[in-house]
């Protein structure tokens, strides 16, 4: 019944945030949404681990190298963290900071993907007679 917990926490914090926004201390709304995000994420962390481990087992069974799979996992993790940070900045009406966070995440993702890309290009060049 963890879905109920997660949704419950979400609804309660949403109501809190709405109330806080209307009160004379709107800056606490941001803190509430931050803490809610962290709580929900830590609740699903164990289950996420199970999913990732199952996927790793599947990936080991195939002929694909495990390094690619871990690269993809890293990229997904970066995407989540970046989204978390960017959403919080957006909530606080800081669109500029949010887009900077996203830029940083994109660059790091590209750096992670670069070895695969370059090796693939090398491969194509070498295959051509």
């Amino acid at each position, binding site marked *: 019944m963890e879905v109920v917990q997660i949704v419950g926490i979400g609804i309660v914090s949403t109501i809190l945030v709405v109330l806080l926004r209307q009160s004379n201390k709107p800056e606490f709304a941001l803190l509430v949404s931050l803490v809610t995000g962290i709580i929900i994420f830590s609740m699903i962390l164990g289950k996420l681990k199970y999913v990732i481990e199952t*996927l790793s087992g599947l990936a080991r069974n195939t002929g694909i190298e495990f390094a690619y*799979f871990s690269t993809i996992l890293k990229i997904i993790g970066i995407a989540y963290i970046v989204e978390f940070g960017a959403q919080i900045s957006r909530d606080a009406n800081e669109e500029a900071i949010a887009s900077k966070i996203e830029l940083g995440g994109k660059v790091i993702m590209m750096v992670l993907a670069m070895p695969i890309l370059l090796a693939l290009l090398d*491969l194509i060049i070498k295959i051509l007679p």
Partner: protein
Amino acid sequence: MGIVDFLKLWIRDIAFVFVIVSIIEIIIPNNNMKRYIDMVIGLLIIIVIITPFIKLLNKDFDIDKEIFKKEIEESKFVYKDNMNLVSMQEEQIKEVYLSKMEEEIKELIQETTNYKVDEISISIYEDELRYGDIKDIKLAISEMKGMEEKEKETKDIITIGNIEKITIGKEEEKPTITEEFDKGKEIKSMLSKNYNVPKKNIKIFLNTTGEGE
């Protein structure tokens, strides 16, 4: 490997990859990061599809190795400025290693013989071929005694203030010294066996302060 096996492995890989990709598609966040993840997944699928054919056409090309090489190049590029840090870290690692080795030798000698080690200094090779091997060992040992005597001995050292260091192998007149010379030889051969150091690079000095009384 027959053509049937080849096709079987190939199709199995493709099927597995698509299953994994569809699960990954579920867990990726649905914002504009999705495009980047999709790109990498696309590269992965291309690699999985063409890898068997590279092995057929070009036997000495290993894409995993190539990717690993690129990763090393990348990290070299990124951490070029951090080389200073790396050398500092190496220095620290060397220090820790040396002190660990010193402790180990001390314990070894104290456990196997009735001498205790007063001072020890070790130097190691730093060329790439034998990195970490011990170059030479210098030891200053003294005979182990009971607790009271030991205390007295340290007191004596403070009052007398000079510690005679005798190189074993030079003094051969007294019978007691020759006995200890044998002991030193024993320690030497033990150390050279355990740590693969040539015997001529091990120097053992005996502290004989307590024996003068």
